[in-house]
């Protein structure tokens, strides 16, 4: 980084649960070196002392669900040298993107006593649908090792090492036994982006795809296997409609199941 001062870091929240930002604070052992190498200029979860922009690094959590945020993300982009999206909401629209498959007007009427007080968009969209993004960290929540790798890469001016291959390869490196093959447990690992370290299969659970699609996912090849394991069409559809429901490959998979089984 040029100049005598430390790079200035900002953390921003859009429609999200704060879990990804908290991963920053979860970097307990590394927190002091981080604070030493960057100036944490704007991070409401950490400090009420907020410094004005511009910022060298902006970490953006959450998706765009209201008109104000569609404008706010443009201002943040304009003030940021590197803009990095963190987590499933910011990278694919998050669990709240389930609205993209439904009628938001109906939700408003059913849920709120005075729906006219509520101004919302019909869809939940990732940050990259609104502004150019320099890098993205996947996951619900993100993995702290990937956050540190990303910050280190920006600080040293190199490309971050964020493999986009499948959870399977992390699972095998860890020595896990495949839950699909040895237990018949439905698992999205073969189509899901690596980065979590294969946590769920290590505890005999199937991957539920919280890192979203891998670099070259083939959900169509996985569907027959999941059906053979006894998943009903509505379960299959839901399997692909969680934290990354609107990620194109997962969306295509759930829609192909829905189209095959017809309207509910």
């Amino acid at each position, binding site marked *: 980084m040029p100049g005598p001062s430390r790079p200035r870091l900002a953390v921003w929240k859009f429609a999200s649960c704060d879990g990804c930002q908290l991963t920053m604070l979860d970097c307990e052992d*590394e927190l002091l*070196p*981080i604070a*030493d*190498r960057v100036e944490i200029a704007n991070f409401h979860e950490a400090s009420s002392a907020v410094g004005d922009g511009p910022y060298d690094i902006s970490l953006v959590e959450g998706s765009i669900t209201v008109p104000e945020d569609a404008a706010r993300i443009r201002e943040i982009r304009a003030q940021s040298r590197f803009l990095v999206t963190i987590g499933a909401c910011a990278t694919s629209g998050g669990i709240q993107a389930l609205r993209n498959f439904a009628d938001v007007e109906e939700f408003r009427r059913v849920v709120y006593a005075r729906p006219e007080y509520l101004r919302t968009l019909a869809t939940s969209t990732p940050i990259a649908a609104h502004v150019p993004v320099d890098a993205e960290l996947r996951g619900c929540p993100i993995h702290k090792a990937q956050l*540190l*790798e990303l*910050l*280190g890469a920006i*600080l*040293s001016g190199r490309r971050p*090492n964020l*493999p*986009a*291959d*499948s959870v*399977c*390869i992390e699972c*095998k*490196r*860890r*020595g*896990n*036994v*495949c839950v*699909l*093959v*040895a*237990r*018949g447990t439905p*698992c999205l*690992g*073969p*189509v899901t982006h690596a980065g979590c370290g294969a946590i769920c299969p290590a505890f*005999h659970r199937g991957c539920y795809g919280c890192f979203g699609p891998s*670099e*070259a*996912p*083939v959900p*169509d*090849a*996985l569907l*027959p*296997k999941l059906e053979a394991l006894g998943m009903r069409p509505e379960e299959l559809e839901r399997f692909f409609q969680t934290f990354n429901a609107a990620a194109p490959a997962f969306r295509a998979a759930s829609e192909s199941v829905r189209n095959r089984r017809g309207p509910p």
Partner: protein
Amino acid sequence: MTPSVVGDRRTLLRSDFPQFLRALWNGGYRVVGPTVRDGAIVLGELREEADLPIGWTERQEAGTYRLAPREDAALFGFTTGPHSWKKYLFPPRERLWTAEAEGSSFRVVPEPSDPVPYAFLGMRACDLAALQITDRVFDRAVADPGYHGRRARALRIAVVCGHAAPTCFCVSMGTGPGVGRDHDLKLTELLDGGPHRFLVEIGSSVGAAVLDRVPTRPAASADPTAAEQVVARTAAGMGRHLDPTGVRDLLLGHPDHPRWTVVAARCLGCTNCTMACPTCFCSTTEEIPDLYGDRSEKWRRWDSCFNLEFSHLHGHPVRPSGRSRYRQWLTHKLASWHDQFGSSGCVGCGRCITWCPVQIDLTEEVRAMQADPDAVQTTGAPP
């Protein structure tokens, strides 16, 4: 007692097996072998006899594996599992060296070699064949000090398979089920015709030295015959078959065969076949620097030709389609491996068949191409 020599055949009673293990531990070995974990027979460190899968076996077929109890208390009554021995010699993640800043330059701190030798207990014929292959792989372009350091001191204790899995085809590949000479000790578990016992055949002086610390007796004349019958029975039970005749030319000569498109439509590209394969050796390296830029670790980790990024050269992946990646894997394994390393890359262990979540079976793929080698794609252009 006269010391044993290479070629000796001795009988080890099952009841003395704990003493065999003790001889390995006391000999300073880190004993690794089969053990039950996570619903499968995996490879792990053995610290007591009970760590062995006593009385366990497995049922496996393409895309499915289930642990199952045996009706007897055999110690090695199973075939292959999800792990292979490569994980010890070529670890999934390995730090190669560390760089430390020194003024305006840096110095390289080499990785110390692992001081404890392995005893690999329970290598099958296909595993030993795979070991010979990886020995050549890691010795070609640049000798790998980590691999060779661990390999040179590893004790290879072979166990002859008492049966074949439905996914086994070592007979086709000429690698088993009989164990040749490339071992330190060879065990055949004998469950019938007398007490539960092992015929032990000595393959090296190191093996002889270990066995001399264990109570054994010269093999009764019936035991070698019984051991030959075990091999014959296992050979007769092969669940899969692959005719390797002409496979090299068949695969290399038909890069546009429609079967590549058919299999690519089924393939997840998940890398499981390459991870389970005992000879797949692709890796990548990564730098892990600290936040200050004063210190950086160089790590190597398993990678796979099924990953898009793996073929990323000068700006884009040169194997962009799943079809081109599956074809790369199979043609390398069964064809160009001959040119590169002087043998097939496949030992017929069947792991890639069992551990493919979607049941892709390379023997079936080869057979389909053999049946109709000059088939032409009728719809759509190959990617």
